[in-house]
Structures are given as structure tokens and as C-alpha cells.
């Protein structure tokens, strides 16, 4: 998507974020292990990763939407506010107003026994203190905006009376109800049919442009990420392993994991009977993380130092970083060549 970079400072600034969950028996699981993110107004970032990579936990940290057992480290700043230090009352006023969220499965994210229109109006009343009737008018406008057919009638529907695609449109309407600055989307198209997915993605992109929203889009689908985002951050084992502009990541994937993700994409070129390319092994167990690089055990280029040291993010181009020792090695051999 285009970014209209009129503002200077980032609207979302996450530094060295860690999120720990305590499980039974005094053990802790580090779901997010030092993530840095920043997002400008009007920019869309895709957080790409598989299940358990920490992408959803990172996303929820922007709202502190975790169970009470979660422990945070580092800092999360959104629109100049320190989210991790915010008292609970302020947090409730901030959620839905400054930052709002679209959930993965709209069939589960709406309260089943309230009318959809009322659920949207409820958020507006909560944040803007206007009357229920005015809030309903706002909800009607939003339904028109997300192109729900016969919106007056649909406002009175219960969630189970809508189709999946329509529910997700209603979810988007709910998320936009109080004109937030940042929109978080947690795999918003995963639960939908393929044809509906595209419609919802196009709608999201259009609304993002019109409203100048900053969007963080969590997905496991690199195709979706390329479709919607300006930048991609690839997560693995609770860390960002590669980040950069969409085009750079596609053209020049620098982390073996990103390379594997791109190689395992099924495109039109897939030949019947040929084997799909996969990344061998399984994602790491967060409660029992290997020392060193989290991707080490699955990496075909793994070196001895990968098993003991965690690679930092290396600069591989304009605003393009990857966390792999190979990059350091390549840079070293190149400079050797130059000096020779």
C-alpha cells in the first residue's frame, strides 16, 4: 500500500518487547523474545510467521490484551503513550479508541446473544458518550461503508444470522467505529472462503488508504502479506528474523527461514505429481527453546556458533535487516575479496 508520510515520528514504537507466560509448576514460556517494531502513520506492516512464532502475542501487546499471567519487558509506545505502564482504567479508554482490532474468526469474536448493530453502537457509546440512537446511526454509516447489503436490516441481525464474509465486514465496521489511528488485524481472512478473502483484503486496503490508518497485519500467508503490506517482518520463535520492504524481501530473502517460506509457496508453476517444497522439522517448543538461533535446528546452513549465540539483525540493504550469521560471513568474505 502507499504510505502518505506526512508525519515524522512513528505512531507505534515497540522496543525490546518480551512477553512471558507462566504455566503450571512455576515454569515460564517466553512467547516474544525481544521484538523491535516501528510503524509510521498510514503505513501497513505484515507480521509474518507460523503458529507459535509470537506474532499474535506481539500484536496483542499493543493493547495489552493478554491473560493476567503475562509478564512484559521492554516498551510499547503507541501515539505517545506507554502502553505497558498504563493503569487499567486508561487502558480500557484507549482500547478501541486509539487502537482497535479485527479478530481472526468473526464467528467467535461477536457476542452471540447481542445484535451486531448494538455491539457496534456499544463501543461508540462507551468512547464518545453519545446517545444510543446516534451511535446506531454511526453503525449504519459504517455498515454502508464496509458495503454490507441492506444495512438497516443487517444491523438488527444476530451474528449467527450473517455469513462469514459479512460478519468480517461487520467486524471491520466495529473496529473502525471510533475512528482509531492504528488498526490491528489478526489473520482477518484466515477463517474465510478464498473468494471472500480477496474481497475482505481489498476492502481493508481501500479503507486503510482512505482513512490513513497505520495497520499491523498478522498472517501466516506470505501471499497475503505481499498483497496488503508496505513492509514485512518475519517472525520465528518469538523473534523478528527478517524485516524490510515487501519487494526487497521477495526479491532478496536473506534469512534461510524466509527463503524456505518463499520456496514452499505453491504457485501456478506447481506440477501435478511433483513434491511440494517444505521446511524440514517443526517450529521450536517455546517452553524448551534451544540456545542460540531459534531456527538453527531446522537450518541447512547451520554453523557451530548458531548453536550457542543468537544472531543480531544485520543490515542487508535499504531498511532491510536479517538475523543470520551467514550475512556477517558473506560481508567478511566480500571485504576480504576487496582488500585482496
Amino acid at each position: 500500500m502507499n504510505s502518505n508520510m506526512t508525519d515524522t515520528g512513528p505512531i507505534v514504537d515497540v522496543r525490546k518487547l518480551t512477553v512471558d507466560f507462566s504455566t503450571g509448576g512455576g515454569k515460564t514460556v517466553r512467547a516474544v523474545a525481544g521484538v523491535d517494531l516501528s510503524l509510521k502513520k498510514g503505513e501497513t506492516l505484515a507480521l509474518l510467521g507460523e503458529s507459535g512464532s509470537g506474532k499474535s502475542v506481539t500484536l496483542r501487546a499493543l493493547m495489552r490484551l493478554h491473560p493476567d499471567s503475562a509478564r512484559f519487558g521492554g516498551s510499547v509506545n503507541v501515539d505517545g503513550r506507554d502502553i505497558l505502564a498504563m493503569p487499567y482504567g486508561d487502558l480500557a479508554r484507549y482500547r478501541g479508541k486509539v487502537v482497535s482490532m479485527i479478530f481472526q474468526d468473526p464467528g467467535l469474536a461477536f457476542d452471540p446473544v447481542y445484535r451486531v448493530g448494538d455491539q457496534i453502537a456499544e463501543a461508540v457509546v462507551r468512547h464518545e458518550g453519545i446517545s444510543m440512537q446516534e451511535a446506531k446511526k454511526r453503525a449504519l454509516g459504517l455498515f454502508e461503508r464496509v458495503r454490507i447489503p441492506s444495512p438497516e436490516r443487517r444491523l438488527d441481525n444476530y451474528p449467527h444470522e450473517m455469513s462469514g464474509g459479512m460478519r468480517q465486514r461487520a467486524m471491520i465496521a466495529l473496529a473502525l467505529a471510533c475512528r482509531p489511528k492504528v488498526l490491528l488485524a489478526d489473520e482477518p481472512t484466515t477463517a474465510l472462503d478464498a473468494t471472500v478473502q480477496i474481497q475482505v483484503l481489498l476492502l481493508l486496503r481501500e479503507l486503510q488508504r482512505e482513512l490513513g490508518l497505520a495497520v499491523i497485519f498478522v498472517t501466516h500467508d506470505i501471499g497475503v502479506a505481499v498483497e496488503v503490506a508496505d513492509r514485512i517482518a518475519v517472525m520465528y520463535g518469538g523473534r523478528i528474523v527478517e524485516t524490510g520492504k515487501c519487494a526487497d524481501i521477495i526479491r532478496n530473502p536473506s534469512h534461510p527461514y524466509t527463503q524456505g517460506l518463499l520456496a514452499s509457496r505453491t504457485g501456478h508453476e506447481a506440477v501435478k505429481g511433483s513434491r511440494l517444497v517444505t521446511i524440514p522439522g517443526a517450529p521450536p517448543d517455546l517452553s524448551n527453546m534451544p540456545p542460540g538461533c531459534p531456527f538453527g535446528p531446522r537450518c541447512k546452513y547451520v554453523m557451530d556458533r548458531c548453536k550457542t549465540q543468537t544472531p543480531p539483525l544485520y543490515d542487508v540493504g535499504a531498511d532491510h535487516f536479517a538475523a543470520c550469521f551467514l550475512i556477517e560471513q558473506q560481508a567478511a568474505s566480500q571485504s576480504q575479496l576487496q582488500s585482496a
Partner: protein
Amino acid sequence: MLLYILKRIVYVTPVALGVSVICFLLVHLAPGDPLTSVMPIDATAEQQAEMRAAYGFDRPLIVQYFLWLWKVLHADLGNSIATGRPVLTEVSRAVVNSLILAAVATLIGFTFGTLFGFVAGYFRNSPLDKIASAISVFGVSVPHYWLGMVLVIIFSVQLNWLPSTGAGPGGSSNWRPDADHLRYIILPAITMSVIPTGIIARTLRALVADILSQEFVQALRAKGLGEWGVFKHVVTNAAPTALAVMGLQLGYLLGGSILIETVFAWPGTGFLLNAAIFQRDLPLLQGTILVLAMFFVGLNLIVDVLQTALDPRIQRG
């Protein structure tokens, strides 16, 4: 909605008829002739036959049933064999007493059951939950006639604070809401409320914990609702199931408890049933069981209709 209610009432009719057949037959299945217990031992066979004919026990069972049903539909449940008074009068008075006891027990049981259930569900696995859960397990598992006797021993015999039996001073069987009568209802009502407290608390605990773990609760927080706002949604979601459980419990309570009413000599339906069984008072037994069964049927109807009104996912088809 009105059409739906009418439909439900139509559906209830065969159930009510079936219940009446079972009521009628159950009593006839019991061994022994009801008349032998009221006739003198030295009554001749002729006298016995005469008595049987007078009460209609000599006719075929099916004829007896329809005669009985015809009378029942005209609000005539016959006369008690033991006292000779109309069964309807006896049952009505007992029902009123049982209803009063049930109402007080319901008030106590539903209040504490809901309270414990919500606290335990909201603070799952906390010490508060452990206490509330322990109380509800105790409530469900303790034999309530035993609890009744223990309460009598403590509060009536040892402390002499509350009367142990009866519904009012001087063996009064007409309960009135005054201070004197109120003292008589405390112990039986508390004893009676223990089971519904436990069952409602356990059901609500599981229900509330389940609702809180659903994604829409996170979505409610994500749109900025505070704990109070979320709580309202939890209550609305819990209401249909909670209501069904409460309706069932109310039915049990309205049915009176033979054991509790016997322990406390409370002149309700349970007490009446007990007396009818021991005296082989067939018309009284039939009448009481029928009235109680109809209470259940009616209550189920009300709960069904309320549930449908509360939960939009239940089709009104």
C-alpha cells in the same frame, strides 16, 4: 412469540395426559388394597365388596381411569379416605405451605448459588474459588435430612434459638408472614436451599469460566469495555442456561421434600405424601402426585418460553 407460546401449550397437552396415566397407574401398581386399612378387621366379605363398589374399585381399570380423569378435569380429586375431606382442599393447603417454604429456600439458594458460581467462575483456581467450590460440593453431597437434624440439634436443642418443628406457634398449619411464623421457616428453608445452592453454583462456575474463555470476551475488552461492561455480557450469555437449571431446581423445591418436611413436620405436600403413603390414602396420594407433576410440566413450559425469549439462537419454529 404469542404463536410460539400457544404452540408450546399444545405440545404440553399429551405430556400432561401421559403424566396423569402414570399417576393413576403407579398407585394401582402398589400392592395391597387401599380399603383394607380403613375397614375394621372383622368386616365381612360382603361389607368389603360393598365398600369397594361405593368407591368404584370394582370397575375395570380403564373405566376407573376415565372416571377419575373426568372428575380431575372438573377440579374434583375425590375425598381423602383417611379424613373424608376433599383431596383438593388438603392438597391446596399443603401446596401453599410448600410454596412458601420453596420460595424462601429458592431465594436463599439462588442468591448464594449465583454468588458462589460467579465468584468461582471469575476467579477460577484462586482461594476464593476453592472455598466456593467446597461449599457447593458440600451442598450437593450432604444428605439434607441429616443436615436438618444437625441444625435442629444446634439451633433448637442446644441454643434454643429457633423452633424445631411445625409451621407456626401452636401447631398452626397456615403460615403467615409475621415474626412468629418467620422463626419457624428459617431452619427448614436453609436445609432445603443447600442443594440448589450447590447445583446452581457448580453449573454457573463452569458456565462463567467457559464464557470468559471465549474469544468474544477478548473482543469486548479490545473495543474498550471495562470489567463492568464485560460482566453485563457474561450475565446475558449465562442467563439462558442458568435459567434452565434454576427452573428445574424450582420444580424440585416446589415438589416439596418428603424428608425435610417430615424432619421439620412442615405441613406441605411432602408431609402430605408421606402421610398418604403410610395411611394408604389412595385418592389423596393420586391427587398430590398429580398436582406436583403438573407443577413440573407448567414450570418446564415457562422455562422453555423464557429461554427462547432470552436466547436468539433458539429457533421459534
